[in-house]
């Protein structure tokens, strides 16, 4: 059914349909309306979820860990500073292989205090061990929230999954979203089967153990195996979901008019939509331009991205967060995949920090700027200098 709704509402709808056992949230500023909507669903008796309102985001993630270890299906939502406070426990959730799904309304980290969109919060959690997916639209945020459940809970993965959606641009903007019938979503996510739940008192298990130098390393390597299992699971969940929804999700990224493209932009999130409009305009004038929109950021599909870009002459990799003292993280992800072999020219654009708008004209400038790009250059888009 097609409705006009904000990205927040789209995520909350997906959560209502999934109906997790536990949702633990804290309404920090800036939080999101996701928690508000969900609290309303609980109050109205639409879901049987145990809503745990806690005293901080640190506690929210802690409650998620406890509930997930006990054997519950758990979802939470946060943004910006809230994620920053959660990160300590997010590492623990990942190390305990707990399939907690989180919607992250991407907003700048303080300071200065800002609350508007950028990806610095997601970048902060880059090495946490959580799987990270970026949505272009409210529709994709809805779809990936449903898919995330299956990816997180797959027995070979068992990791937290973050679904990123751009703050304000997607979260507060009303768009057309087609939701699935409740029962279809319920069938798709299925009954949750926890592994070694703490509440199974007949089969006691140890969670969150101490691990000294003799075992810590091996445990971390095992955690990496969970990440390594993600790509295959991601593709099969996409395939199944595409059949269910009729919306084509195929691959770790969307290749938009990429086949014969000489100049390419790589970007994550809502800016990809604006970039598609620019690609279409330039294509209409005969320019061979294309777009690679990253869906799956962690684990990063290095080989596939490198393959998709290998035919291009020049590539602009756009990071919506600074990695102080170095190139942007996405830039390094991609260029490192080309280490030791010939590849296109790569230039890094830092853009849209703290909600700086990204109009089509700026994207057109990026394509134009690729004419004289030099690998290793760091440029700032839409910055007053």
């Amino acid at each position, binding site marked *: 059914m097609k409705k006009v709704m904000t990205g927040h509402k789209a995520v909350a709808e997906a959560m209502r349909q999934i109906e997790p056992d536990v949702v633990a949230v804290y309404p920090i500023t800036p939080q999101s309306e996701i928690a508000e909507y969900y609290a309303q669903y609980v109050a109205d008796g639409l879901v049987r979820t145990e809503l745990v309102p806690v005293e901080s985001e640190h506690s929210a993630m802690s409650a998620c860990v406890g509930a997930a270890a006990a054997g519950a299906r758990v979802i939470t939502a946060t943004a910006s500073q809230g994620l920053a406070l959660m990160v300590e426990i997010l590492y623990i959730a990942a190390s305990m292989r707990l399939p907690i799904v989180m919607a992250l309304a991407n907003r700048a980290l303080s300071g200065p205090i800002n609350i508007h969109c950028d990806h610095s919060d997601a970048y902060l959690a880059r090495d946490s061990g959580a799987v990270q997916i970026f949505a272009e639209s409210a529709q994709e945020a809805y779809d990936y929230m449903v898919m995330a459940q299956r990816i997180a809970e797959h027995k070979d993965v068992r990791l937290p999954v973050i679904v990123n959606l751009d703050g304000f641009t997607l979260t507060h903007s009303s768009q057309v979203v087609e939701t699935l019938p409740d029962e279809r979503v319920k069938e798709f996510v299925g009954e949750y089967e926890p592994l070694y739940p703490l509440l199974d008192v007949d089969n006691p298990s140890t969670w969150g153990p101490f691990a000294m130098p003799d075992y810590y390393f091996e445990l971390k390597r095992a955690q990496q195996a969970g990440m390594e299992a993600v790509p295959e699971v991601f593709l099969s969940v996409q395939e199944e979901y595409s059949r269910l929804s009729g919306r084509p999700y195929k691959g770790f990224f969307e290749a938009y008019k990429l086949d014969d493209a000489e100049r390419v932009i790589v970007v994550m999130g809502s800016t990809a939509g604006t970039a598609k409009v620019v690609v279409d305009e330039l294509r209409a004038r005969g320019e061979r331009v294309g777009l690679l929109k990253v869906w799956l950021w962690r684990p990063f599909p290095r080989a596939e991205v490198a393959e998709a870009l290998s035919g291009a002459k020049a590539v602009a990799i756009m990071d919506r967060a600074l990695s102080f003292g170095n190139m942007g993280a996405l830039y390094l992800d991609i260029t490192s995949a080309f280490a030791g072999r010939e590849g296109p020219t790569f230039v890094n654009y830092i853009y849209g920090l703290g909600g700086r*708008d990204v109009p089509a004209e700026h994207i057109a400038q990026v394509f134009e700027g690729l004419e004289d790009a030099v690998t290793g250059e760091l440029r700032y888009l839409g910055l007053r200098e």
Partner: protein
Amino acid sequence: MVEIRWHGRGGQGAKTVSQILAQINLREGKHVQAFPEYGPERSGAPVRAYNRISEEEILVHSGVYHPDIVVVIDETLLDSENPTEGLKPDGVLIVNSSRSEAEIREATGFRGKIVVLDATKIAREAGTGFPNVPMLGAVVAVLGTDPAIAEEELKETLSHRLPPEVVEKNIRAFRAGYEAAKGVYVGG
């Protein structure tokens, strides 16, 4: 694609009607976006809201810089907000005012199409007090949207939060706004 910018003051419901306009156009089979501009939220402070309406899927996710329609719910914003900024020369300016079209033209210097309606008076007479709904009626007229579809959607949306007699008053306010603007169309 038609792009719309709403100017109002916090509490006047610019965001609400931009949202309802999106729903109306979805009901008509269009692709839509509605989004507010967020700043410090204070009652009475100038606020902006935006719409995009298109036959094609809307992919762009940036702000609106060159609107086809500008709607001014609060006339005092004509002086402080420069609402005609970026408005396309062949666009439409819709202003809530008791002044004449000529006076608004002089005050704004805008040379394109201007629709003036006294939405405050319409709202008062309808018994609702909120000028945003007659202004929504005016925008629906300027877009050439089927008013019956618009009324259906408005009625359905308002019925979720208002009692039937208040919904009815709003429908009257909407109709009066629609009638006041009928005959001027965007792009045509």
